[in-house]
């Protein structure tokens, strides 16, 4: 099967959407996939043999249009449009559209009706998009995958404990971009409830972004500045070790399409607290894998944190990867992706 896959970025790209695109390519191992990216940031690793990656399409608008017009002359069994923003160039083919999160939560003038189907990382994003667009065609849910073998419960690294002064502390962790325009990760909410948590509880915010100084000021105002730790940007190689420092992963967010970070945290044996108002709910299998809170209610966030900490205190050796997390294993992802493609290509 010949598949054309239009993406924002994939190989040589950062972030959740690039990762999802690479995973989708890897999952469709029986197809021949041609990938046309808009952006290539870093060095491009060799894609798998069944994938042709047209990296030169990212060399500006002219190069991109050239790649698209070349693609138009070829014959495809299926076209996948990897981002709603690319739909205008892809409509011609009646593509299968992939939607991720907030980009699909708001009304926009885009020819959704022309799609042969929708693939969404969560039921929530699907429902929200179908809500404003009144799209009534086939819609599939394909949640992100986590490679469990890349994580796992590890010895806590002494250098990190020293660097972040975590000795004798209980650690809440959120991983995410500190984006001043969005402010939807729930950092503010956790800083607010820190006041009402025991003194030995600290909050580690892991990620880069332009909102750190505002959050620092808020923590100072509330008298908890010494208990909020900003790691700044961190290397991919330290990620699993960073998760392993945490006692609780908490992210009372409002803007996650799915919430891949929850899978990473749980894959490190860290109990997770997610939001009822965004895709985090589905990452926790509607509460089966961890606690859900309403991010607009500080009291709920606080109670969930206390309860999770208490359970850990009762059984310190109880760090474990929750039963059911294999729902999001790469093998299950691949099986779902293949089933969707088989139905959509018909």
């Amino acid at each position, binding site marked *: 099967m010949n598949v054309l896959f239009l993406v924002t970025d994939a190989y040589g790209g950062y972030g959740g959407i690039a990762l999802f695109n690479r995973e989708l390519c890897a999952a469709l191992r029986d197809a021949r996939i041609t990938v046309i990216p808009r952006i290539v940031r870093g060095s491009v690793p060799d894609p798998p043999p069944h994938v042709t990656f047209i990296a030169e399409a990212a060399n500006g608008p002219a190069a991109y249009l050239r790649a698209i017009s070349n693609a138009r002359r070829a014959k495809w069994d299926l076209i996948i449009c990897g981002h709603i923003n690319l739909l205008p160039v892809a409509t011609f083919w009646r593509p299968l559209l992939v939607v991720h999160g907030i980009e699909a939560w708001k009304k926009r003038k885009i020819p959704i009706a022309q799609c042969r189907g929708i693939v969404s990382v969560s039921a929530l994003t699907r429902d929200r998009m179908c*809500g404003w667009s009144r799209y009534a065609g086939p819609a599939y849910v394909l949640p992100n995958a986590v490679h469990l073998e890349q994580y796992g419960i590890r010895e806590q690294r002494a250098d990190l404990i020293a660097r972040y002064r975590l000795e004798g502390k209980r650690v809440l962790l959120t991983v995410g971009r500190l984006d001043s325009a969005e402010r939807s990760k729930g950092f503010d909410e956790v800083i607010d409830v820190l006041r009402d948590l025991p003194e030995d509880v600290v909050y580690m915010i892991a990620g880069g972004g332009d909102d750190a100084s505002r959050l620092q000021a808020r923590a100072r105002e509330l008298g908890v500045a010494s208990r909020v730790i900003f790691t700044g940007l961190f290397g991919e190689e330290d990620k699993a070790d960073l998760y392993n420092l945490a006692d609780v992963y908490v992210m009372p967010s409002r803007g996650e399409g799915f919430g891949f970070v929850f899978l990473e945290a749980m894959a490190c044996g860290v109990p997770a607290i997610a939001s009822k108002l965004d895709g985090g709910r589905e990452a926790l299998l509607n509460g089966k894998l961890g606690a859900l809170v309403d991010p607009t209610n500080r009291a709920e966030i606080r109670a969930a944190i206390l309860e999770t900490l208490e359970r850990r205190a009762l059984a310190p050796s109880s760090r474990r990867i929750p039963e059911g997390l294999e729902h999001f294993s790469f093998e299950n992802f691949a099986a779902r992706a293949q089933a969707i493609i088989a139905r959509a290509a018909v």
Partner: protein
Amino acid sequence: MFAYRSGAIDRAELEAITARMIPRGPDAGGTWLSDDQRIGLGSRRLAIIDLSAEGTQPMWDVQRELVIVFNGEIYNHAELRASLTRGGAQFHSRTDTEVLLGLYRRDGARMTELLRGMFAFAIFDTRMRRMFVARDPYGIKPLYLADDGATIRIASEVKALTAGGRVSNAIDPAGAAGFFLTGSVPEPFTIRRHVRAIEPGTSFFIDEERGINEQRRYFSIAEVFRDAKDDALVDPAVFVRERLEESVTHHLVADVPVGVFLSAGIDSSAIARIAARKTLLHTFTLSFTEFSEAPLAERFARELGMSQITRVVGRDEFLGDLPRIFERMDQPTIDGVNTWFISKAAHEAGIKLALSGLGGDELLGGYPSFRNVPRMVRFPRLARVVGALRRHPKARLIREYGGTYAGAYLLQRGLFLPDELPDILGADVAREGMERLQPLENFERAIEPDPGTPFGRVAALESSLYMRNQLLRDADWASMAHSVEVRTPLVDVYLLRQLAPMLAQQGDKSALAADLPDYLRDRKKTGFFVPMKEWGNLPPDGTSTRMRSWARRVWESFA
């Protein structure tokens, strides 16, 4: 009841207070007195969750250290129970009542912030010999208090407190003035001088040393608007429907069949549409010989596959019920008769739980006040000129009241005007009433702290005044009189907090209407009224409306 200074509780009084509330809870009841007779609790039960005898109140926890009487429903009780169970708590019933005991044991006074629902309860903690009392954030459930300096009495009805014989029946001029100004008695006043309403969104303790202490405000509508970050990640209409759907789902938690009070309006129709997909619904619509929305509601109910009952009410039935209406009406109010008959219909059909669209206009800005009040505040002179041209009787007072939100709101919602009170109540009562009531300051409290936007201010005023004092009170007494519990999915603090960021600037009811058929969506807004004028033989009253005459009739039954 808590004889906190000295003495003992009179069991007969406790039983008389409890007995007054039998229609509220015909299924079971009980009283409990402490060994030293200082503390007494009484309850009547309308069984909705866990119908077994384990749900009877006063209810003890498994340790037999905490005892509770509770009126209301906790919609997230299953979730809270799961959390408590994970922490090792044990329960003997499946009720939400017992969850409150577990939460109190774990979180103390902070427990109220975790509750999604309507509630008024008192927990006596035998370990510390103190009572914890709380009322829900919106004031959906009533709760009244009388403190004579020796004994504190608390109940769900003003008439229950006075039924015990120890609380005086003396009229509160502030309550009387408030009734004629607004059509209902503004909290914290009641129609009885020695009874006051416990403020919604607050809790406190009572003990023998200090009486009432550790008062705590845990929720404020104005604060929600003040703190709302202006953002909208999701298409507003989609988000409103999604959140409403979640709220309705929560409000369906029950072990008995569910009804919906269905007018042909947008709010009740939107709720019915959502609920019909989750459960078998019984819908009830009123129809009057003089006026009827029933054909539209019937058509809608048919399309959704709901079991629909249209209850026709005529003048004779109205006049026949009037004595009982006045008997069950807890405080004077110009409304509630519609809820009386629709609840009567539900009761006749064996339904004891019904959803109502109450609150949609307050939440999403469906009233003219959302336009008029900010306008009157910004352009009081213009409003005066327009009012004068239209010969509006209120125009002459715009100079005095038009410049502030509280004042403009009084004009907008006013039934009688302050300078009309002496004619109705007599000069002395009117003067004392106005002095005690201080209507503008009373209204001001609803918008402190400043909600920050015109929409937020009017929403806080409407929700804290008209909705709380009038709509919710009437929904409560008139339904409970028929042993029917009314639930209001649009009056929900979770929903408010979730929607506030997008509502802060402007509300929009079209989100609710989007999924409704054209014949409901495109109708003009009509009131849900009873043809009182035609039925009541009400005298013509100069420039006044039929409601003003009705108010005088109601007043006669209390004065």
